[in-house]
């Protein structure tokens, strides 16, 4: 039996979702050789009593080492997750003593809830625009910084990455002020060039609000995508460019025929990270609009929060949380599969 089949066999006996992860696991080459070199002597040792005792010792030590992580993780992640799924079948409020099993009612209500669909759609809008803008600009910027300029690379990279280390709350408050009809600089600039700003404001107009949020999010994270992709582009072997230079290729051709295909994996990873960010989004929406006006900018995260902690419908919030969980896990599995190859 080949060593990685050994891993698969054991993992396969576990939950089926873990089989997907085990494929990922096999992509860690060091792990394969490590298992291969140890599995065989381990079995031989078992025949001798003294060696058997040592193996017991190792097992106990190993479990002592894993225990703290396992306990904390079980209490604050595994148990709450199971609990979320359970609660999604109850009518229940955090300050409401009346708990009632309602079967699939919360899910049925979900399908008929226009605000839920709006929230889901808004997550989708953020996802699409974030990918197009952040990955689009990020890739071009990275290409320019890696090959197109002679000086200032560190300066530009530092500047563009700076918003990433700020909290999404700080970015939200900052952009709320930037969009402010009175002191905001966007309206000031528009007035200077003689354009009339939107009457209801950038965050008050249901048709504009999503784009105002996306602009703030892209301001914060485009530099992040750029940095990841830049790291990938820098590892493209220089010989390729030397060869293409001999063939008389220009920089634009280099970009399309060398840089882009060679950094495909890293761009894919950055795209998935951006997508996961869009699925999880909460802070910036909460700070900028709380999901308003009139639910126009509600996303799954804010809608869960609103149901659970504002209108005391924790059971219904749990049903939305289960939907979010399913979507997040799908993207997470994709990310794990692709990024481990990079």
């Amino acid at each position: 039996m080949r060593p990685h089949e050994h891993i698969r066999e054991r993992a396969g006996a576990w939950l089926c979702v873990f089989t997907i992860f085990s494929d990922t696991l096999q992509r860690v080459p060091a792990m394969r050789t490590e298992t291969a070199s140890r599995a065989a002597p381990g079995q031989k040792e078992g025949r001798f009593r003294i060696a058997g005792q040592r193996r017991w010792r190792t097992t106990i030590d190993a479990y002592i080492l894993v225990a703290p992580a396992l306990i904390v993780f079980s209490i604050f992640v595994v148990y709450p997750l199971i609990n979320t799924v359970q609660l999604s079948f109850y009518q229940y409020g955090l300050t409401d003593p009346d708990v009632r099993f309602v079967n699939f009612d919360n899910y049925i209500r979900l399908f008929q809830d226009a605000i839920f669909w709006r929230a889901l759609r808004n997550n989708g809008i953020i996802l699409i625009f974030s990918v197009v803008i952040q990955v689009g600009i990020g890739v071009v910027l990275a290409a320019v910084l890696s090959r197109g300029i002679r000086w200032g690379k560190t300066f530009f990279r530092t500047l563009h990455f700076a918003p990433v280390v700020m909290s999404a709350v700080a970015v939200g408050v900052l952009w709320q002020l930037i969009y402010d009809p009175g002191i905001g600089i966007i309206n000031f600039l528009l007035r200077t060039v003689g354009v009339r700003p939107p009457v209801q404001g950038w965050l008050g107009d249901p048709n504009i609000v999503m784009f105002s949020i996306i602009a703030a999010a892209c301001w914060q994270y485009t530099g992040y995508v750029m940095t990841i992709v830049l790291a990938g582009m820098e590892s493209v072997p220089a010989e390729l460019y030397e060869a293409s230079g001999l063939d008389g290729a220009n920089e634009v051709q280099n970009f399309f025929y060398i840089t882009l295909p060679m950094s495909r994996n890293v761009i894919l990873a950055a795209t998935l990270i951006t997508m996961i960010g869009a699925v999880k989004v909460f802070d910036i929406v909460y700070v900028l609009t709380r999901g308003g006006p009139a639910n126009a900018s509600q996303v799954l995260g804010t809608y869960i929060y609103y149901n659970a902690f504002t209108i005391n419908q924790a059971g219904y919030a749990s049903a939305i949380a289960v939907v979010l969980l399913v979507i997040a896990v799908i993207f997470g599995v994709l990310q794990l599969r692709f990024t481990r190859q990079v």
Partner: protein
Amino acid sequence: MKRQSTLSSTIVYTVLIAYSVVIALPLVWMVTSSLKTTRELFSSPFSPPVNPQWGNFIEAWNSGIARYLFNSLAITVISVVLIVIVSGMAAYALARMQFPGRIPLYLLLIAGFAIPVHTTLVPLYRLLNNTDLLNTYAGVIGPYVAFGIPFSVLLMFAFFVQFPSEIEDAARIDGCSTWQMIFRVVLPLSLPSMASVALFQTVLLWNEFSLAIIVLNDDALRTIPLGLSQFQGQWTTAWPLLLSALTLASVPMLIIFVLMQKQFINTLSGFSK
């Protein structure tokens, strides 16, 4: 040929600098505006402050920023230290030791990395409420450590798997027990990988908001993001004050970033956020 490349280089720099202004302008505006009067904010948003209002900073600082910074610092440091210890121990055992249940345990611990904290907010609130941990440091630190484990185990597992086994073998031959080996040999050698896990989690937790907002209601316990959100509701027209608070809240991390930018960029762009 030479002329053309000068021309294209000029175009590239023009576009790059124009785009950089878009990134820099909000930050510059934030810092300069925090030193202005409200009247100046309206009349001349882009000129430097005529008469810097340092009092804005003092007032924001005294309105709670100092306490919020302290809370953020305490919560972040304790959580990060615990994450590194707990995940490092687990990752070492999972990567370097042979024992039954190794693979399922590894998969269980890393499977959590994709889970958004919002999917667990309701049960976490119930759990913390039942155990009287709402409005305590422990109430956020517990979940922070738990949610930090998957990614930290993933990174450190990758490190330990590549760790040369000759070093361990040599230590064993010299008569080290497992524990002696871990503390005297493995731990010192894995400090760089722990440092990058710690840096990653520090940025994440320093800025965390979603969980903190349901656990920490007491003003004395608020972290920086909670405090900012609070000021946003309180100072709806005291803009210079709000901008000062924003500057005070953001500048520490920005300064640390500029000083340690190489480490930040390597760590944060390594895998995901």
